[in-house]
């Protein structure tokens, strides 16, 4: 016994140290996920039996398909806008204009705030009595009626943008700042205007960073829950739909919810791997090393 201890004590101690974490991981994540997977194949409300009807019911139903489509629309739309916002922003921020530290902090704000609060504030600001519409109707000529932003798809995309663009912006900025400026100088001396330098030299070199950041934004937007819950109105992306399945009907439809959850997870994994393959091909030709 002591010999066993002596030869294996190092490993045993390490295992012992990791035990609580592993226990927590299994108990609070792995097993629940397993349970969800199992539940998704059970007929609703039963504890035995296997069926695919939870999946077919969701995937065949046009409402279910709309939920999936909506989630992608919201996620892709806000990701694309994030990129469009982040690139110029990063280009400005790296020039260290006066107060740039403050503006960098601003970019971090949406990350720090719980989605719930952000959504609340956005609803207030963009509502019919909010400042945006007040500005439009009172200070902009030709506009008499307020514009509907809240509870619309385009509004929701914008809310997502507000919440999740920092991921893209920060990685883009850091990619930008790791560029050697003498390369840009070389471009200029070679006869390229600043715009040409941007197009031919800077953008190709920071594209990997932009893509990496946009993945983070997409992931966050795809899995968004608290925001569409209170600001989605009648629009219910996947995460909200899952919740609705167990919160609204009585008895709660755990199996249906589980199936949707598995579908959501699968979609995310598929999309991620496709995106990664695309990124690898796009960034392949020779990024900075």
């Amino acid at each position, binding site marked *: 016994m002591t010999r066993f201890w002596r030869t294996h004590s190092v490993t045993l101690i390490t295992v012992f140290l990791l035990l609580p974490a592993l226990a927590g991981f299994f108990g609070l994540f792995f097993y629940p996920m397993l349970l969800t997977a199992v539940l998704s194949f059970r007929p609703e409300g039963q504890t035995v039996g296997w069926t695919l009807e939870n999946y077919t019911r969701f995937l065949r139903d046009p409402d279910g398909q709309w939920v999936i489509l909506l989630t992608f629309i919201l996620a892709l739309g806000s990701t694309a806008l994030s990129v469009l916002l982040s690139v110029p922003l990063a280009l400005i921020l790296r020039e260290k204009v006066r107060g740039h530290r403050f503006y960098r902090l601003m970019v971090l704000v949406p990350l720090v705030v719980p989605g719930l609060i952000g959504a609340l504030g956005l609803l207030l600001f963009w509502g019919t009595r909010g400042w945006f519409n007040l500005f439009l109707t009172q200070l902009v000529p030709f506009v008499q009626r307020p514009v509907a932003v809240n509870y619309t798809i385009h509004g929701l995309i914008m809310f997502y943008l507000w919440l999740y663009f920092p991921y893209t912006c920060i990685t883009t900025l850091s990619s930008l700042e790791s560029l050697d400026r*003498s390369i840009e100088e070389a471009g200029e001396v070679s006869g390229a205007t600043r715009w040409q330098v941007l197009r031919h030299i800077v953008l190709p070199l920071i594209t990997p960073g932009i893509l990496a950041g946009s993945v983070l934004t997409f992931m966050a937007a795809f899995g968004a829950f608290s925001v569409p819950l209170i600001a989605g109105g009648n629009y219910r992306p996947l995460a909200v739909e899952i919740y609705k399945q167990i919160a609204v009907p009585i008895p709660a439809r755990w199996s249906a919810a589980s199936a949707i959850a598995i579908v959501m997870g699968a979609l995310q994994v598929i999309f991620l791997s496709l995106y990664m393959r695309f990124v690898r091909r796009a960034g392949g030709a020779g990024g900075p090393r």
Partner: protein
Amino acid sequence: MTDAMIEFRDVTKRYGNLLANDHLSLTIRRGELMTLLGPSGCGKTTALRCLTGYVRPDEGRVFIDGTDVTDLPTHQRELGMVFQNFALFPHMTVHDNVGFPLMIRNLPRAERDERVGQALRLVRLEGYESHYPRQLSGGQQQRVGLARALVYRPKVLLLDEPLSNLDAKLREEMRFEIKEVVTRLGITAMYVTHDQGEALALSDRVAIMNRGRLEQVGTPEEIYEHPQSRFVAEFIGLSNFLEGHIQAVDRDTMVVAAGGLQVTIPALPNAGPGQRVLLFLRPNEIELLRPDDPGGTNVFDARVEKATYLGDTMDYRLGFGQDLTLRVQTDAHRRFGQGQRVRLRLPRIRCWAMTSG
């Protein structure tokens, strides 16, 4: 067409309290290779950047081939530049890197390809078109940089410490190549470095800078043999300095009293008796004689205070006169030991004097 290809006229640049360029006025002639030499912080890189346009001078004007380019943006100045860290575009092949200036100028592809081929032949890198910078060695990358700088036949070539990132052996090889290419093309070049060996080996003329000002401009020989200030004398090669004052002047020679001894040297123009001068002499110009060798002009008794064997040379510290010390380097065939008495001779024409210093 003026003979001056590059001209700095009173160029001044400040960074906060630091005066990087202080009323710098310098002319570089057509076809010559001028080196800006000086310690770090002397302002040579700032001057280079004023020329490229990356930095705008606070005062003064910059001219290229007679045209005032001070307000012209960088990309319109038709320059070629080689960078210390190569600054190659990592995401482009060698061919695209070198062809970039041509692509920007919208040259048709066929002509682009031909010129790129020419440029690569010039730097002996034919066949490397499809390589990426990260696949090349340092020396090869720098040659690509050179090809890129020359491909569109600029009027002026700028080189910003191009050899600093290469190892010593490669440096000598590249030094030669750069000089060869520049001479063959007959292009005007401005070279910036802190390495005096490079400056002396490559340049037609050298401009030594210190703290934003020009100390001396001249050929390598002039700089080395006739430095006009203590700084220049100390910066290039090893030096000895003796302080003294002029005792007598006689046509083309003068006698300087230093440390209780009299040294005869070539006369300085406009220098008269009583004036304080600094005598300057290189350690390897001083002759060491045995104590019983005959005397003569500028022959003095001395004592070896320290002798160091360096393989091919001997390095001595000699004391002579009233508390004077000289550093002497000779070949190692004849050696003197510590404490030994010797005689040293300061060859008259090898001495150089400057007023005060």
